[in-house]
């Protein structure tokens, strides 16, 4: 059979790689809109096992597939493209569509979920099978081919950011499908002809799916679904963005008044609800309805304004602007609003016809589009009041955010914020009261430890907290709370029927006057936090939940569940309630177990044909598994660390993926020109390990020191940091394939499969390590894996 032209192969490979990466990221957005992010994470992780599965299939049917590869390759690519919109459509049909919230209530959702897994695996499988066939058949040019694969993947990461600004996610599947379709056409052309039927049929399907794709319907339990059921509700604005699908819904029944006093007898005006991927960001209040803002005076969030005048206010993650409005209403002369969601800022500052009284349009308000922590680290200003976003959500989040990095809620963040306060300045944070107490306690431990770090020996003198029946407001000062301030707070609480929870001179009988708790447990726990370092640390060990402050190395504030306490919680609440404590965390481990199980089965399967003995197989397993794990560890950790640096998770992911993969692609290309003796391989691996260790030790310092630089400067710095290690990290795979092609060519498909499985496992495992041990541990794990790979390569040379 005639070889296909290398240039056409490379071009097709680039296109299909662009397609599948863009599709993967679009799929995350789609599932996040339909369900919640961590279910998206789980489903995509399983679906990507399609990569490894393709390797398994290729191992089992290698001869047949290679014999007909010229015809099979374009068909696989086109099938990949056609199935991209098709699987999304099918997953939303009634027999298959599942709902996260019903999953643990015994509604036979598991069958639907398994079907969804299989469906979403299909496009990944077809793509990976095509790539695997190319790598196997043309292993002599693996350096150039892997270069195309990596560069294409990097470009796919960039492309999706652009596409998400222009198209809604469900449409993107047809566009990514088109890329895959064209890649197939390129190879057909290489054969001399494009089958007319295939061309017309495929183009028709992609066109129909683009123009006639039904609207996505999110879970009935999402805020969006419930809000649209309200009378006279309508979506007045809808925009796609890398932050998610942003929607504004109006209804005369949408109201919001967190922490409201029972003494308020006025009216709460209706407003707009702003949502991202179907979840509530906040309610938009109208500045023109000034008279109806009086209810703001009757909320616990008035606490800092009761304590003193606040001329200059900083609001972090300002969202819909309700805290901006509150600050202005309470007399602030200037308000700095920091909001990472550029789409939201754009909507609220671009004079949307129905939103012409957005608070962001006022002269006294300065708006910055970046994340909270990045702003604080870059800013030299000091403020009378800094307001953090509310911790947890109304109704609880069922632990959906347990894996989300929250760099604004780490101990270091609290210190940074306090350093930006004027002498009488105050930091305010609101917390929805939860039971069992978790969020509130962790906020207290974080603040107390942050204050102790700046040598404040009596944190209780610097903190005050008040609550109503479901909302807690905490205020922290760098200087002690004065007697006047304390009196003002007492008067305010008495008039509003709020309870003081923490205050320098608070008596225990003053705590539970208007809003009685079931027992004193909550207060006892708070008292332990304030009492002494020893008592606090004992509490950390003994308490059923993790309330140790998050740090910059482990910025997962909402991670409360402890695996060792699951049995205790099961006895208290029953096993069907456990997932709702912390669904994200539970799903992480469920995903990991599922992936490992499936991977092990599918890695072992080809051995029934290839045989179980032979030392080379163990070497292949260790080598390709090790580099798959290690590479993805670094990629995941880079994405998470650069999120803080760039102030935006989407741009961080796009930048990191693009830079890493392109640099690795160049490294792969370079291998084409050389043969590799073990000594040269050894040098490459040693360089990789050294560069990783340097990054493990110094990366955080470099990023923090340059976080205030301009965006262009930051991209250059990221390139300087990422490029060297990524360049060398692109080499082991093609070197390994080349060696395998000389010594054990029948193992190449198996190696491709192992590498695919390892990459998927690494995605989840990196998160587990980061959550349990910290980011630095992931770097060290990657260094260990590369070292082990080097040792294994000795037997494979």
């Amino acid at each position, binding site marked *: 059979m005639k070889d296909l032209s290398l240039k056409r192969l490379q071009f097709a490979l680039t296109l299909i790689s662009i397609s599948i990466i863009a599709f993967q990221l679009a799929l995350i957005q789609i599932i996040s809109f339909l369900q919640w992010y961590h279910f998206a994470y789980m489903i995509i992780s399983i679906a990507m096992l399609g990569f490894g599965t393709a390797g398994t299939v290729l191992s089992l049917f290698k001869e047949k597939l290679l014999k007909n590869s010229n015809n099979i390759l374009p068909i696989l690519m086109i099938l990949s493209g056609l199935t991209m919109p098709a699987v999304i459509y099918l997953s939303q049909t009634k027999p298959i569509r599942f709902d996260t919230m019903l999953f643990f*209530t015994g509604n036979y959702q598991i069958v639907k979920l398994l079907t969804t897994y299989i469906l979403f695996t299909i496009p990944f499988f077809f793509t990976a099978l095509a790539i695997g066939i190319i790598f196997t058949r043309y292993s002599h040019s693996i350096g150039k081919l892997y270069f195309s694969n990596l560069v294409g993947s990097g470009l796919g990461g960039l492309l999706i950011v652009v596409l998400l600004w222009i198209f809604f996610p469900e449409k993107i599947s047809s566009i990514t499908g088109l890329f895959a379709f064209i890649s197939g056409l390129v190879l057909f052309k290489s054969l001399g002809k494009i089958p007319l039927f295939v061309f017309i049929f495929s183009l028709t399907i992609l066109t129909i799916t683009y123009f006639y794709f039904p609207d996505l319907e999110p879970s009935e*339990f999402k805020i969006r679904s419930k809000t649209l*059921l309200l009378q006279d509700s309508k979506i007045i604005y809808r925009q796609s963005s890398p932050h998610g699908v942003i929607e504004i819904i109006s209804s005369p029944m949408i109201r919001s008044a967190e922490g409201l006093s029972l003494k308020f*007898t006025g009216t709460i005006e209706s407003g707009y609800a702003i949502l991202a991927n179907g979840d509530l960001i906040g309610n938009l209040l109208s500045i023109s309805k000034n008279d109806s803002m009086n209810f703001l005076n009757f909320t616990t969030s008035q606490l800092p304004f009761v304590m003193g005048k606040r001329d200059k206010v900083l609001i972090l993650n300002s969202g819909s602007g309700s805290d901006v409005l509150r600050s202005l209403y309470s007399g602030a002369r200037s308000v700095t609003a920091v909001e990472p969601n550029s789409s939201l800022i754009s909507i609220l500052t671009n004079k949307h016809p129905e939103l012409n009284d957005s608070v962001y349009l006022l002269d006294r308000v300065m708006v910055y589009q970046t994340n909270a922590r990045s702003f604080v680290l870059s800013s030299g200003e000091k403020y009378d009041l800094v307001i953090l976003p509310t911790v947890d959500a109304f109704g609880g989040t069922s632990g959906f955010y347990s894996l989300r990095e929250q760099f604004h809620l780490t101990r270091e963040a609290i210190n940074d914020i306090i350093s930006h306060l004027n002498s009488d300045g105050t930091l305010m944070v609101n917390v929805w009261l939860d039971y069992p107490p978790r969020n509130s306690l962790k906020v207290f431990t974080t603040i107390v430890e942050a204050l102790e770090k700046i040598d404040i020996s009596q944190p209780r003198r610097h903190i005050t907290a008040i609550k109503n029946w479901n909302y807690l407001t905490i205020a922290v000062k760098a200087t002690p709370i004065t007697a006047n301030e304390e009196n003002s707070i007492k008067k305010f609480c008495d008039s509003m029927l709020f309870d003081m929870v923490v205050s320098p001179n608070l008596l225990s009988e003053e705590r539970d006057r208007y809003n*009685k708790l079931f027992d004193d447990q909550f207060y006892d726990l708070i008292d332990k936090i304030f009492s002494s370092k020893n008592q606090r640390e004992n509490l950390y060990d003994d308490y059923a939940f993790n309330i140790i402050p998050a740090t910059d190395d482990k910025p997962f504030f909402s991670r409360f569940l402890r695996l060792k306490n699951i049995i*205790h919680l099961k006895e*208290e609440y029953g096993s069907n*309630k456990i997932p709702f404590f912390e669904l994200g965390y539970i799903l992480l481990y469920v995903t990991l177990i599922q992936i490992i199980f499936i991977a092990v089965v599918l890695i072992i399967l080809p051995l029934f044909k290839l045989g179980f003995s032979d030392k080379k197989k163990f070497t292949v397993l260790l080598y390709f598994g090790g580099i798959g794990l290690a590479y993805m560890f670094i990629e995941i950790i880079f994405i998470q660390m650069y999120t803080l640096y760039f102030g935006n998770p989407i741009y961080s992911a796009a930048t990191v993926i693009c830079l890493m993969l392109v640099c690795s692609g160049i490294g792969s290309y370079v291998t084409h020109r050389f043969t590799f003796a073990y000594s040269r391989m050894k040098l490459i691996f040693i360089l990789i390990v050294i560069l990783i260790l340097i990054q493990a030790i110094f990366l955080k310092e470099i990023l923090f020191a340059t976080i205030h630089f301009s965006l262009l400067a930051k991209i250059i710095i990221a390139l300087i940091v990422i490029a060297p290690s990524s360049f060398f990290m692109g080499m082991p795979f093609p070197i390994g394939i080349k060696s395998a092609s000389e010594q054990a060519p029948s193992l190449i498909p198996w190696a491709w499969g192992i590498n695919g499985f390892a990459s998927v496992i690494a995605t989840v495992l990196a998160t587990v390590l980061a959550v349990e041990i910290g980011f630095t541990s992931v770097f060290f794990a990657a260094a260990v894996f590369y070292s082990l790979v080097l040792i294994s390569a000795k037997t494979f040379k």
Partner: protein
Amino acid sequence: MKIFLVTLTILVILFPNDDPYLSMRERMVKIQIKNRGIENKATLNSMSKVERHQFVPENLKNEAYDDNPLPIGFGQTISQPYIVAYMIAAINPQANYKILEIGTGSSYQAAVLAEIVKEVYTIEIVEELFSSAKKRIERLGYKNIKLKYADGYYGWKEAAPFDAIVVTAAAEYIPPPLLEQLKDGGKMIIPIGSPFFNQNLVLVEKSGKDFTTESLLPVRFVPFTRKK
């Protein structure tokens, strides 16, 4: 013996057991409610009488008496039986009470209340749920339940004041009109938390122009896993 069996068979055919769910309901009241400390007789009697399976979707009838909430569509749930009982017992309903319920949902809670009190006024904000609840209540013959499709924020001014107000879905804040429509000495009960993990309730009591709240915990949490 033969005559006896034939007679028995004839009797079973002529007088079939009208309520195949009766034993499930009795078990629910005994194990899920009474054994967990709910002693309010009116509540227990009412929960024994009201056929919960009539208030759930057809495909969930066999799960109607399970110890958990069930979805009823439109993002809503019928609460776990224990929570329903707990909420009702907390307001200690009397025969002469007039009660306002915000969030009719399946109308199960309204039906349980209707067995105890004089009048139940219930408001539902979702039209489809309102329509199905209305039909159900009419079919089951509850004459002392009045339903309204409206925004619960405003309560039911024409029927106010109320001896008690039951809010069935977690609320971010308590609408001032509801507090206004509560009688002096009246009680309001509200859940906190997600529908599948609703373990807390808050009881609001009105005294003149003042209010106190008390958090009630149907399931009390033991915070420490090691004994000191």
